[in-house]
């Protein structure tokens, strides 16, 4: 599903990744582990192709994404669900509108959007808050909206960049439960975290990196 072949990404302050290679099979829930600044976010951003890949190649479903043109990249990203540590919710749009955004970008009709968003809101337990704005929610609820926005279009891959970084342990568990549920339905999930105690009882597959290099 996702193959890294000697991938190097140079970023500011000598951060980034250096000649990393690994494979992730379809439907797996893989944790990216390592200390802050190790290069976890760079790997996530490389898969999303929001950073320039300096060397090597990344194959996703057999396609070299480093060679994608603008329109191919947009199409590729529409099949990825992204969860950010800082949520990146749009504050002047309601919870419903935030979750519906990826569906509108896919050209989904209004009736189906309504049905899918309501389903996913029920799944994350926020059906009663669909009309409120993100700034009216707690951190845990905002991250649930972010997860809902990522899973609503049923993507092949979900990338989660420190999704529990700003949450308390209980809210963090809820988020990981939701992601595990998606993984059980066949979605490939890559989650970056430096909080080992949170995941130690759940972990099946992991990639450990330090100073931009693969450790395990």
């Amino acid at each position, binding site marked *: 599903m996702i193959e890294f072949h000697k991938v190097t990404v140079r970023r500011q302050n000598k951060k980034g990744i250096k000649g990393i290679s690994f494979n992730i099979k379809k439907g797996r829930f893989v944790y990216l582990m390592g200390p802050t600044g190790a290069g976890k976010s760079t790997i996530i951003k490389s898969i*999303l192709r*929001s950073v320039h890949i300096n060397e090597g190649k990344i194959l996703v479903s057999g396609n070299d994404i480093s060679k994608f043109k*603008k*329109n191919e990249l*947009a*199409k*590729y*990203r*529409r*099949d*990825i669900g*992204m969860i950010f540590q800082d949520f*990146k919710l*749009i504050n*002047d*749009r309601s919870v419903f509108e935030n979750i519906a*955004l*990826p569906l*509108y*970008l896919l*050209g*989904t*009709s*209004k009736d189906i959007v309504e049905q899918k968003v309501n389903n996913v809101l029920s799944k994350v337990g926020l059906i009663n808050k669909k009309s409120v704005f993100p700034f009216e929610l707690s951190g845990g609820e905002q991250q649930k909206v972010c997860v809902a926005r990522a899973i609503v279009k049923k993507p092949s891959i979900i990338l989660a960049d420190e999704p529990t970084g700003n949450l308390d342990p209980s809210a963090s568990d809820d988020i990981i439960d939701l992601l595990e549920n998606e993984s059980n339905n066949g979605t490939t999930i890559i989650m970056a975290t430096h909080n080992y105690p949170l995941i130690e009882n759940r972990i099946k597959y992991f990639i450990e990196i330090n100073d931009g290099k693969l450790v395990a």
Partner: protein
Amino acid sequence: MIEKIKFIMNESIKSFSRYPLQSIISSLTITMCLLILTFIIYLSNVSNNLSDNFKSKELFINVYIDNKNNDFESKEICEEIDEIIKSDSFQFLSKNKVYQTMNVSKSIDELIGNDINFLPCLCKYDISEGDTDIIDKTINSVKLNHDSDISKIVYPKSYLNKFEKFISIIYSFIFLLGIIILVVSIFNTSNVIKLNINSRKEVLKTMILHGADDYLIKLPYLIEGMFHGLIASLISSSIILFIFNLDMSFDSNHFVVNSFVSTLEAKSYIFLNLILGILLGYLGSNLGVNKNKIEL
């Protein structure tokens, strides 16, 4: 595709409620530009009126008939000359009428008594031809045919030349001013829209990361810019209608004063405002979007 078009239209319209301050600033900027451009169009209309009114009211050829001819003979000569000049209309002034227009003092009047035969009759021709070369040729032709019967021919050649030059300078100035204001207006509008886009950079980044196509990012802004232009043209049209309905009648027959009354109707200004408003909104937002490319 229909759903995407709906999304684009929805995004454009909803931005008014999401970003009311930016929308108001953008619309008012375009309104100011439209009002200035309307004033330029009005100035152009005034200079056109000045040129037309000058030609219709002030262009004439005065032919003084030699005083050896009496009133009857002079009138016949006047009619013959008119066949050469082909004037719009002509006026014949007998010796007596010429004398009356002179406003001579009482002492001279007593001295002259009834003997006004020394005066020439006057033929006054109104012409619409403004080309001095053509008028010169006509006058030469008149002289060639009636030289012995004519005392003097007067027409304001230098006056006309100076006026034509003046009008031509005004036209060039207004044209240049119009172009400068149009360019400044486009940049002004684009800068306001650029700031507008800048304040929504995070929203755009989020959309790009979710796989929004380029046109889904750009088109809502272009349509939004055109909406701003439409609103601006409605505001400026209301102001123009208000000005048109003000009672500003002039009690003067002088052509210069009358030239300041616009011959273009209010609906023409409103139509131009609508077109220019939408165009300014489109060009401004297009420039703003292209200047503010977000790549991820």
